[in-house]
């Protein structure tokens, strides 16, 4: 009984230490921006620590490549086993602070039948967008008509927010190399 107690104590201390340890220096989750999700709930990237995740940037009124970005995430989800899928989270961050309110993101969730148990859509302010795009290496520019021109990319993060892999092959058919990297990350 006492041994069990010591074991439990050790495990919980180790857990606390891991949670309290600062993020690694190369973690993209260090970006200090404040986000709101599709339900209007506030979150920071640092709170996304723990577990493998996919991340990318998009904007909800995008007519062309952004639906493909969502397809990319869904394609990867689809290619995984249920056990693998359960461990993978997906984060879609908006490039468009002026138009992408949480309600707009909620509409995307409904329209694209997105599972918000594992997927999160987020929106921040203009400065947060610039910083987030900068750590992710995403280039973008707002066009004269309000649309955005931006890199279409899917990025794989480890549990501490370090970039493990990225692909610019977007669409429902997953990039095999990227999918292999996702699987490998989920195994470790």
């Amino acid at each position, binding site marked *: 009984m006492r041994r069990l107690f010591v074991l439990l104590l050790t495990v919980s201390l180790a857990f606390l230490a891991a949670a309290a340890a600062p993020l690694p220096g*190369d973690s993209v989750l260090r970006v200090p921006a404040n986000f709101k999700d599709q339900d209007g709930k506030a979150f920071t990237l640092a709170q996304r620590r723990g577990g493998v995740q996919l991340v990318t940037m998009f904007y909800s009124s*995008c007519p*062309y490549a952004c639906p493909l970005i969502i397809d990319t995430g869904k394609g990867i989800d689809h290619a995984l086993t249920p056990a693998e899928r359960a461990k993978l989270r997906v984060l879609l961050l908006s490039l468009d602070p002026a138009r992408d309110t949480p309600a707009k993101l909620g509409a995307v969730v409904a329209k694209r039948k997105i599972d918000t148990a594992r997927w999160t859509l987020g929106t921040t302010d203009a400065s947060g967008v610039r910083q987030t795009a900068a*750590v992710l290496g995403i280039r973008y*520019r707002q*066009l004269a008509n309000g649309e955005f021109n*931006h890199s*279409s990319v899917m990025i794989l993060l480890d549990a501490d927010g370090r970039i493990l892999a990225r692909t610019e092959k*977007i669409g429902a058919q997953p990039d095999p190399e990227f999918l292999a990297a996702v699987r490998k990350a989920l195994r470790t």
Partner: protein
Amino acid sequence: MMKTRYLGLLLMAPLLLAAAPSSSRYASIPGGIFKSVLDYEDSGGKVQLKPYQLMRRPVTNAEFLDFVRANPTWQRGKVPVVFAESRYLQSWAGPLQLGGKAKPQQPVVEVSWFAADAYCQSIGARLPTWAEWEYAAAADETRRDARQDPAWRERILSWYSRPSNTPLGNVGAAPANAYGVQDLHGLVWEWTEDYASMLVSGDSREQKAEDRLKFCGAGAIGMDDRENYAVLMRVAMLSALEADDVTANLGFRCALAKP
């Protein structure tokens, strides 16, 4: 002369500066429609600029030292590598010491975009957009747009042919342009807020379908005014950078919306 010295004193005394009107550190630039060297398909290369204020000079080592003193997370050795690569402020003698290779009145260099962005935010400002930088940098001492003058182009280009290991001059040594802004050319390269928007391709018409697919939306870009090499080199350099990069001749200045 007296006035210049007085301004210099103000710049070195942040406490005094806080009490003084911000106009002493910034020049007011009227807005206008501007033909940028970046010829975007969607805008026809025309940029509509609102009035803004631009720092008269690039940020100096002394000013950046004040910033890292007040904001320890931006000190060399403390800044996370995701925000600044290992060469960040490497010419400084120490995290809080300038030393012989980084004089107080030289422009600060070896700073990442994140650090430049954080500096400007710390004083309630922001980095200028590329268009704001280019607009102010089109002026010479007497004209607001001197770009068509071959002699002006020649003079700017001569700077780029200097060996890059020449020590940097002090800020404010060159004459002010028609807006009262100094050192836009001839001293350092400068970060802009939207450096990541410079999606440059050599010729957008030759862009292959798979390259176009990398970008959401087909807002292609070409280079207008191919003779303006000096400004085009800036675009090429900025478009090749990542936000954590630093270089030995890349600094910055801040901007503000017109109050």
